[in-house]
């Protein structure tokens, strides 16, 4: 507002003087005050008070709740299961979407357009729908099993309620983001840059490894962080499709709070997950900042 006032023609020098940096800073602060206040009140304050609460037992400082979590075999199994599920699903989604992005980069025509559209489709499908669709398709007596039986295969074992169930849903759900960011990265590599490598004797694998991959390395890291964070905090997909034990942290937390009414234990689980998320989030921010500073 003030900036506009100084730019309009008929202002006096006095008017210009009054709009110094201090006033502009104040105006800027006023603009962000509301969201910052919301953040402080609704996120930061509850988080801090919760973290403090997890270290307080009967009015005294104590780490006994964490000691329990990190010695309880079941809690650790759940944490391990969540991390492995996140890692494997995120890496698989990246690998598949890298393949799709490569195909899209070097192909044109109707089939490529169709594959592009299909790979972005999960973006518009809520997790709950994906979960139900997979139950109906891959679950016991689902469409997939019926189709297999039609061709005489009767030994189908459904991935429903096994670690593979949520894995399939996570990968499918996660595809659009890496396809978008890797495709964007690959368009930065000119046809001539690829041809120059081919011309100098490089085969497809070397071109992939030395010419294409380094150009999308950052995109891959960023996509990995975002997918991984989404998966380790997921609730609907593992609740619908995952095994009963071990369970993923989202389900574990909900059950601890909702069924066992053990808010203290649930809070500890939340803090552990939050710390891991912050580490990955920090890594994401560092990569973002580096790519903004490093690009020429």
């Amino acid at each position, binding site marked *: 507002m003030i900036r506009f006032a100084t730019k309009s023609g008929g202002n006096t020098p006095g008017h210009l003087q009054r709009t110094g940096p201090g006033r502009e800073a104040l105006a800027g602060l006023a603009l962000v005050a509301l969201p910052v206040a919301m953040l402080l009140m609704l996120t930061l304050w509850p988080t801090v008070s919760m973290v403090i609460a997890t270290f307080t037992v009967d009015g005294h400082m104590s780490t006994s709740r964490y000691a329990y979590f990190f010695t309880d075999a079941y809690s650790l199994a759940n944490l391990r299961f969540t991390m492995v599920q996140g890692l494997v699903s995120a890496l698989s989604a990246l690998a598949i979407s890298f393949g799709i992005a490569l195909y899209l980069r070097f192909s044109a025509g109707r089939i490529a357009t169709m594959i592009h559209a299909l790979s972005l489709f999960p973006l518009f499908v809520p997790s709950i729908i994906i979960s139900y669709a997979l139950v109906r398709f891959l679950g016991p007596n689902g469409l997939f099993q019926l189709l297999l039986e039609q061709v005489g295969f009767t030994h189908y074992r459904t991935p429903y309620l096994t670690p593979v169930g949520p894995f399939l849903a996570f990968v499918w759900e996660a595809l659009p983001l890496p396809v978008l960011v890797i495709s964007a990265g690959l368009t930065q590599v000119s046809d001539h840059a690829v*041809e120059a490598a081919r*011309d100098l004797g490089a085969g497809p694998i070397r071109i992939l490894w030395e010419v294409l991959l380094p150009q999308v390395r950052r995109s891959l890291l960023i996509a990995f962080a975002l997918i991984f964070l989404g998966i380790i905090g997921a609730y609907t997909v593992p609740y619908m499709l995952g095994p009963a034990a071990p369970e993923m942290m989202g389900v574990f937390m909900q059950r601890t709070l909702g069924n066992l009414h053990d808010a203290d234990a649930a809070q500890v689980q939340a803090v552990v997950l939050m710390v891991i998320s912050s580490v990955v989030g920090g890594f994401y921010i560092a990569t973002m900042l580096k790519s903004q500073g490093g690009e020429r």
Partner: protein
Amino acid sequence: MLQIDTISKAFAGTPAVREVSFTVERGELVCLLGPSGCGKSTLLRVISGLTDADSGSIRIEGADMTRAAANRRPTAMVFQSHALWSHMTVAQNVGFGLRVRGLPKAEIAEKVGAVLDLVGLSSYGKRLPAELSGGQAQRVALARCLVVEPKVLLMDEPFSALDAHLRKSLREELKSLQRRLDLTTIFVTHDQEEAMELADRIVVMQAGRLEQFAAPGSLYRNPQTLGVAQFIGAMNTCTTAVAQGQANWYGTPLRLALPDGEAALLCRPEDLFQDPQGARARVTRVIDLGPVTKVSLMTADGDLLTWTCPREAAPDVDAEITLMPRRLHAFRDGALLSLIERPEPALREGALA
């Protein structure tokens, strides 16, 4: 050394290269010259293997390379957009081809150093492509090709994105380097001056066809097709009917030993001279270009003529002068009919009466 035999290539039914054949000797620099879209870059890509030919064959030192993949051919290509890999340093870019060939690290470093020295960039090895100027980047691209010691170096308009002054100096550098290394080189350009300065011989291409393959001077003095005559240098073109050894050249009857029919008579601006029996034209513009003066003229029929002459011989604007051709290139249906030296004026009707 390099034999191109009836190579053809079409894209979606549209021919880009049509039955082109020529042979390049060892150590020769041949330019592929022609207007945009004439198929010269396509032909170069066919030679490199980046594009497959539809028919015809390519032999390098006798070995058939027609179906060999790009990474199996003893060629290396410099692209118009230098196509350096932005995440690799200059030294890594240059050493790429050697790494592909599995050379030991020490040998790669040594060869990369030597070739960077050759292109005058020995202290630039650790820089990234983004830190180079256009000319330096193109030199790195050249070094990247030279280091793998290709049998044929292919260059696709490598200097066309650079400014005129830089192009000229890089052209000279390239020529001396090419001579020194005795490197067989195919250089694509649409710039006549560049082709004339660089090439030992020039392939002039038009609409996918090879029009003429000759030394630069020969192309200029003895164009074999109308297309080459009109593409290389300036020409005054007069289309006229020839009957009984006589033709009307800008209103002046000339005696020409040509078969009857339509003919295009082409004359270089420097091949005109003032002669009282010549074609009458009015001077519309005089441009002093320094070494020569360019005179634009218009005949009574509205035809435009260009004459280049020494400055002291230049007429004034609006003067009426008469010009005769010293040499005429006569074409019919695009092909050369005859090159006529000192055409003589025919007797005008009633001149003897």
